[in-house]
């Protein structure tokens, strides 16, 4: 065996034949069509042909090696996981009003609905496994078209997913209220691979909120689970797609996500992510700006505490003429939490008249906290506007003094400044209920010490 010596406990041996058999069994148990099994197996072969990260790669250099497992296990597929319904309490982030919703617990469907107006326009929101049967043609057309897998996690994600959602807006469909994909992570169920596919056809307008919560955040779990989420966002010409993800995973979780956006001509994709849970959270966001006049916005918000490690790796990849992309990351770090932002703007020679910007701002509330923002520019076109700004520092003492001079105690004043700082990112979330949820989570996360609740 070539993998007999392992230097880290998180690294586990890959047995290709076992994995192939497991993927086949998984697909069969879900009653998937043959083309989907073929897609899984092809993705698996891609993954097997890749290597794990070593830490030498530029965008992995600051990732703590021992805290993000390099392994590929098929998640525990509990009984009834073939997209069938179970009864469960509503998701804690569940909205009052929404255009449609899918709530999944460990691959099982706890709730699924769609408003009449959206349904009449041909909009779809369904668990991926259900959509694979009921909308096979559509899903087959779009699954994976954002491009080959970004890396081994992404490739395994396509092969091993046990839950996911398919959201589709046909040409010209306009849905004002948000669609919700809610996940409850069953913390005892081990590793998970999620897959989200959102397609906005020409001139359509749609927004999806992807909210994940752990079902027992106080539970002590033996082996920290690995969760990977593959997210594929496609906005065809003239479409407007908004996507927001909010995660509050269990505190022992290693979370990694790969979000890929493909922005069509004069189309827009707006992504907002908010990270609260997990021991390590590494978010990759990759925007393909190949078409002329596209617009993309990536907003990231986080509040770190304890020893959390929160990382954003982004790429704004411009090939189209006159496209605009904007990256805005704001985070607050307490205790000994650490953040890394690695943001690349890449402009190909044909990407003239590009506007591309990045801003990374980190507030450090404790001496032990730290942040490492790294903006990178690779520009091969000569007629572009680019900017980047990165900041790491404490709360502005003049802001604190101003509030204190009005009688507001220092701790409250700090909290106000911090919430204000983050609310400017949360404003990008296209749903008021979710903005309130984020504000509450910020508040909870800022509570001093004690176990996260």
């Amino acid at each position, binding site marked *: 065996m070539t993998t007999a010596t392992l230097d880290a406990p998180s690294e586990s041996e890959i047995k290709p034949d076992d994995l192939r058999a497991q993927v086949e069994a998984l697909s069969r148990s879900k009653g998937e069509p043959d083309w989907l099994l073929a897609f899984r197996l092809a993705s698996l072969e891609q993954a097997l042909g890749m290597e794990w990260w070593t830490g030498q790669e530029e965008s992995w250099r600051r990732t703590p090696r021992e805290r993000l497992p390099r392994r590929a296990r098929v998640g525990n597929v509990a009984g009834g996981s073939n997209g069938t319904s179970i009864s469960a309490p509503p998701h804690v982030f569940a909205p009052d009003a929404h255009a449609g919703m899918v709530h999944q617990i460990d691959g099982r469907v706890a709730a699924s609905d769609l408003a009449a107006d959206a349904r009449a326009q041909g909009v779809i929101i369904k668990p991926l496994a259900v959509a694979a049967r009921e909308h096979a043609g559509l899903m087959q057309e779009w699954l994976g078209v954002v491009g080959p897998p970004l890396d081994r996690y992404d490739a395994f994600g396509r092969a091993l997913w046990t839950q996911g959602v398919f959201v589709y807006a046909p040409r010209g469909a306009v849905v004002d209220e948000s669609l919700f994909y809610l996940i409850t992570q069953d913390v005892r169920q081990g590793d998970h691979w999620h897959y989200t596919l959102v397609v906005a056809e020409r001139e359509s307008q749609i927004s999806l909120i992807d909210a994940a919560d752990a079902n027992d955040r106080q539970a002590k779990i033996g082996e920290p689970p690995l969760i990977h989420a593959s997210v594929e966002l496609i906005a065809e010409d003239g479409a407007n797609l908004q996507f927001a993800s909010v995660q509050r995973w269990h505190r022992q979780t290693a979370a990694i996500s790969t979000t890929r956006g493909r922005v069509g001509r004069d189309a827009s994709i707006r992504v907002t992510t908010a990270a609260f849970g997990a021991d390590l959270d590494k978010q990759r966001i990759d925007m393909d700006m190949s078409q002329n006049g596209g617009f993309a916005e990536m907003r990231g918000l986080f509040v770190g505490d304890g020893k959390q490690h929160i990382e954003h790796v982004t790429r704004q990849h411009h090939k189209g003429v006159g496209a605009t992309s904007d990256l805005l990351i704001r985070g607050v770090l307490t205790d000994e939490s650490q953040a890394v932002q690695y943001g690349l703007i890449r402009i190909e020679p044909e990407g003239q008249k590009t506007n591309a910007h990045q801003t990374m701002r980190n507030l450090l509330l404790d001496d032990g906290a730290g942040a490492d923002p790294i903006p990178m520019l690779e520009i091969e076109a000569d007629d572009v506007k680019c900017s980047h700004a990165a900041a790491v520092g404490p709360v502005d*003492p*003049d*802001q604190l003094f101003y509030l204190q*001079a*009005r009688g507001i105690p*220092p701790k*409250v004043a700090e909290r106000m400044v911090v*919430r*204000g700082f983050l609310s*400017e990112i949360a404003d990008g979330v296209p749903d008021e209920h979710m903005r309130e949820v984020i504000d509450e989570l910020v508040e909870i996360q800022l509570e001093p010490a004690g176990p996260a609740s």
Partner: protein
Amino acid sequence: MTPPLFEIDALQVAVEDKQIVNGLSLTLRPGEVHAIMGPNGSGKSTLANSLMGHPRYTIHGGDIRLEGESVVELAPDERARLGLFLAFQYPTDIPGVSMINFLRRAMSARRGEEIPVREFRQVLNEILGRLQMDEQFVRRYVNDGFSGGEKKRAEILQLGLLEPKVAVMDETDSGLDIDALRIVSEGINTFHSDDNAILLITHYQRILRYVQPDHVHVLIDGRIVESGDASLAERLERDGYEPFMAPAKEEVLTS
């Protein structure tokens, strides 16, 4: 004579080891308006900020007393809750924090209990009207994107809401056009009563046409070099600070 409301007693203040205020003393009694006038660099802003307890300024001598109690050991928020107020020369912008949220918290802090929403609205709207400010104004973020005049009006709005015992106004007149100056001055006069006291810190005499001082003091090199009534301000307007500065300079040279 009524007991003093606010006393500055031989105050010495340093910024980064450089002494700026050199043993300044001043007593304000209830109902009084004092003006401290001084040229650039005389220590006006250092004095204002140190009275409120800005952490950048170190008090290493003397005392500040509010109603007979020393406040030098108190944090800025404690001083504010006791009734000390500073109208900032350059109010800090705080993006993401709405004026209305901020004002309500400040008012509740000053009162020591949550102010009921209805009462808050009522008081707020009354003062907004008086200052000729739109009600939408309080939906904006604290001082964020405010014009110079809006910032100063917002300070006066807070003065009216918080009803302090002692208000220190740091160059409140700077950057105001004549109409704004009049409105801001009226705001100060409306606030002023027999129970509170005002310390106007200013470079120019013009605000003193609207807010009548009982006492005028000339600040040079961190000391009060001359005190008098309102006519002293007129003298300054006519002759400038030059006549007061010469001896102070000499002193520095010979020391």
